[in-house]
C-alpha cells in the first residue's frame, strides 16, 4: 500500500501538470470573455471600453454569421457521413483474409499523417485545378468540360479534401474494433445460416457501436476547428461560400483586427464545442469504469 510519503510525492509530481493545464484553461478563456465585452480594435487601441453585449450583437449580425454556422455544420456532417460509412466498408474489406494486409494498412492510413496545408494544396493544385489538375485532364479525356471545383462547389470540395484526411482515422479505429470481435460468434451465426447482411446488422454493427461513437465524437471536435485547409484553398470564398465559424473568427481577429468581436465569436465557438464535448466525455468516461 502507498505510504503517506509516497502519496505526498505523488501529489508533488502531479502538480506541475495540473497547475499548467489549469492556467492554460482558465486564463485565455477568462480573457476571451473579458475582451468579448470590450470595444477593442487593434488598429484603434485608445477607443476601448466596456460595451456589454455589443460585440455579440456585431458578431451575430455579421452577414456571414448564419452562413458560417451552416457551413460549419455541413462540413462536419458531410465529412462524418463520408468517413464513417466508407470507414466501415474499408475496415470490413481489410479485415478479410488478404495478401499484403500490412502494406494495405500502411497505404490506407497514410493520408492521416499529411499536414493539413500540404493535403489541401495537393488537392487544390494538382487535382482540382480547372486548367491543369488531374480531374480536369480526366474530364477532357472523356470529353467533358473541366469543372472548377473550388470555384463552383467550394464547400463540397473542401469536404472531399478533409474526408480524405480523416477517412484513415475512422478506418483504423473501426478496424481495431472489428479485430477484437470473436470469430466464434460469427462462425456460429454462419453455421446457423444467417446471411451476410444480417450477420453484419446484428453482430458486427452492434460490436462496433462504441468505436463508431468515439470516431464521430473525436472527429467532431477536430472538424469544428478545421482552419488550415480553408485558408490555403478558398480563403473562405468565393464570397463567403466556404466561410466556417473558425475562419470567420480568424477574419475578424487577424484580418479586420477587431479583437472584441472576434472574442465574442470565440465564446460562441467554445459553447458549440462544449455541447459536443459533453457527449464525448460521457462516452469516454463510461469506458474508464469498464
Amino acid at each position, binding site marked *: 500500500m502507498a505510504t503517506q510519503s*509516497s*502519496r505526498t*510525492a*505523488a501529489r508533488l*509530481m*502531479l502538480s*506541475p*501538470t495540473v497547475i499548467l*493545464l489549469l492556467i*492554460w484553461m482558465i486564463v*485565455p*478563456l477568462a*480573457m*476571451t470573455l473579458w475582451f468579448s465585452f470590450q470595444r477593442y480594435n487593434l488598429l484603434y487601441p485608445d477607443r476601448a471600453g466596456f460595451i456589454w453585449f455589443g460585440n455579440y450583437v456585431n458578431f451575430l449580425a455579421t452577414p456571414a454569421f448564419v452562413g458560417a454556422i451552416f457551413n460549419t455544420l455541413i462540413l462536419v456532417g458531410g465529412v462524418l457521413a463520408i468517413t464513417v460509412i466508407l470507414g466501415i466498408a474499408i475496415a470490413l474489406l481489410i479485415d*478479410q483474409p*488478404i*495478401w*499484403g*494486409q500490412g502494406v*494495405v*494498412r*500502411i*497505404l*490506407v492510413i497514410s*493520408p492521416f*499523417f*499529411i499536414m*493539413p*496545408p*500540404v493535403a489541401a*494544396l*495537393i488537392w487544390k*493544385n*494538382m*487535382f482540382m485545378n480547372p486548367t*491543369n489538375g488531374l480531374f480536369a*485532364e480526366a474530364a477532357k*479525356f472523356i470529353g467533358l468540360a473541366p469543372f472548377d471545383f473550388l470555384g463552383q462547389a467550394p464547400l463540397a470540395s473542401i469536404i472531399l479534401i478533409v474526408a480524405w484526411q480523416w477517412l484513415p482515422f475512422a478506418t*483504423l*479505429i473501426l478496424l481495431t474494433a472489428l479485430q*477484437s470481435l470473436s*470469430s466464434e460468434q460469427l*462462425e456460429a451465426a454462419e453455421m446457423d445460416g444467417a446471411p451476410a447482411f444480417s450477420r453484419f446488422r446484428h453482430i458486427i454493427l452492434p460490436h462496433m457501436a*462504441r468505436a463508431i461513437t*468515439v470516431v464521430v465524437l473525436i472527429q467532431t471536435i477536430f472538424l469544428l*476547428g478545421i482552419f*488550415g485547409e480553408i*485558408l*490555403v484553398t478558398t480563403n473562405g470564398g468565393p464570397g463567403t461560400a466556404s466561410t466556417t465559424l*473558425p475562419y470567420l473568427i480568424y477574419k475578424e*481577429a*487577424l484580418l479586420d483586427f477587431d479583437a472584441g468581436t*472576434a472574442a465574442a465569436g*470565440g465564446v460562441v465557438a*467554445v459553447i*458549440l464545442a*462544449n455541447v459536443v*464535448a459533453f457527449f464525448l*466525455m460521457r462516452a*469516454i468516461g463510461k469506458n474508464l469504469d469498464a
Partner: protein
Amino acid sequence: MARTTSIQRKSLTTAAAWAVALLLFFPILWTFLTAFKPEPQAVASPPIFLGFDWTLQNFIDVNEQRDYFRYFVNSIIIALGSTALGIALAVPAAWSMAFVPGARTKDLLMWMLSTKMMPAVGVLVPIYLMFNWLGLLDSRIGLTVILTLMNLPIIVWMLYTYFKEIPGEILEAARMDGASLRNEIIHVLTPMALPGIASTVLLNIILAWNEAFWTINLTVTDAAPLTKFIAGFSSPQGLFYAKLSAASTLAIAPILIMGWFSQKQLVRGLTFGAVK
C-alpha cells in the same frame, strides 16, 4: 480468422483492398512523382506518369530560393521541444495517477481531457495579444510552449493507459528491497514503460509537426515551421507544382515514416484509450 477461405475469394478481396488502398494513397504518390519532374512537365497535358526527365533540381531550388531548410529546422525544434517538455511533465503526473490513485484521480483525468475540447479559435484573441505583449510572437519558445500545453492532456492520457498495465506488485517488491522513489522510477518503472513512452513520443511529434492553427497564426518568418512554409504556396505564382511537390515531399516524408512505425499504438492514443 480461422475460417478457411477459397483462393478465388481471397484473390478477389485482395484485389479490391489493394485498389482502395492505392486510390487513397495516390495523391501522395503523385506528389512524390511530381517532385522529381521539371516544372513544364509537371503541368504537361496529358499528364506524364513515369516517363519524365527525372531531376533533383526542385529540391535544390526550394532550398535556395525559398530557404526551405530554416523552416525545416524550426519544425524540428518545435516538434521535439514540445514533445520533450510534455514528456517531462507528463511522466511524473501519469506515474502518480496510475500507481498512487486518489479518490479524485478519475475526475482529474476527465478534467484534463476536457481542456483539449477547447477550440483553438476560442482563445485566439487572448493568446495572440498575450504573445504580442510578451514579445513571443514569431518566437520558437512561444510556439513550443503552446504546442506543449495543447498536447499535454493527450500525452498524460496515453502514458496513464500504458502505466496502468504495469503490475503494481513489481513496484512493491522494489520498494521492499529499499529502492527510493527516484530509483524506483528510473530503474524499475522506466524500462518497463519505455515502449509506451516511445509510442507516446512518436504520436506527439506527429501531432506537433502537423499542427496548423497556432503555427500559422503565431508566426511570421523567424519561428515559422513547415506548415507556414507550405501555406505560403497558396497564392499562385506561375509554374510551381514541382517545387510545391518537392517541398511537400520533404515536409511529409519523415512524419509518414514515423507514422507507419507507430500506427499500431496510434489508435489507443487518439481515442484516449477508449478503443484498444
